[in-house]
């Protein structure tokens, strides 16, 4: 089936280091990808998105990379802070306004 998934369910990173969260997708027709951050007890919060005509997009402390050849998406967080602790979801869509979410990766920050 067509789905979006994540390689690692939990990622532990030292405070101050960079974090890299990975995601694989299988639908080659997907043309828009989103990363969400979900803190405990809250709804997912939009972080950054990327369209399929791009391979890199940068925001504040975050970078999303898209490799369409291997259907791989990653989120890089620079200088990880305690406030970055959350579950991160990748998501894909292919123009029908329905977003398919991955299962999520929990980012744990070590002091």
């Amino acid at each position, binding site marked *: 089936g067509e789905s979006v998934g994540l390689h690692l369910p939990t990622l532990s990173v030292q405070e101050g280091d960079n974090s890299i969260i990975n995601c694989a997708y299988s639908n080659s027709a997907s*043309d*828009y990808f*989103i990363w*969400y951050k979900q803190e405990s*007890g*809250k*709804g*997912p*919060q*939009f972080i950054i*998105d990327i*369209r399929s005509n791009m391979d890199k997009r940068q925001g504040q402390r975050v970078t999303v990379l898209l490799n369409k050849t291997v259907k791989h998406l990653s989120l890089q967080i620079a200088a990880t802070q305690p406030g970055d602790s959350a579950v991160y*979801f990748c998501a894909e*869509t292919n*123009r029908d*306004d*329905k*977003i398919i*979410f*991955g*299962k*999520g990766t929990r980012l744990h920050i070590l002091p």
Partner: protein
Amino acid sequence: SQTIHQWPATLVQPVGSPLSLECTVEGTSNPNLYWYRQAAGRGLQLLFYSVGIGQISSEVPQNLSASRPQDRQFILSSKKLLLSDSGFYLCAWSPTGQPNQPQHFGDGTRLSIL
């Protein structure tokens, strides 16, 4: 700016009781609206979506229903709750007529069925 509100934040209901969760969006017109359910430690499952007043599409067969009585109001209901209806319910909106836009989520309702 646009905001989305869900209430209540938490709800404890007995099996067999009715349910009504409400979601409203402010600051935009004719949004696409969505209801999701999230099981503990899991991803999001789309339950319903709506592209306009009275227009509801159901994604999975279930004990729940949705209604959109006003442009920016989306309601999730059940006549008789089951234990399996427990979960975290999220409402989301996205701009209509604009492809490749993220959905924006409310802070959810945690529903516990006893």
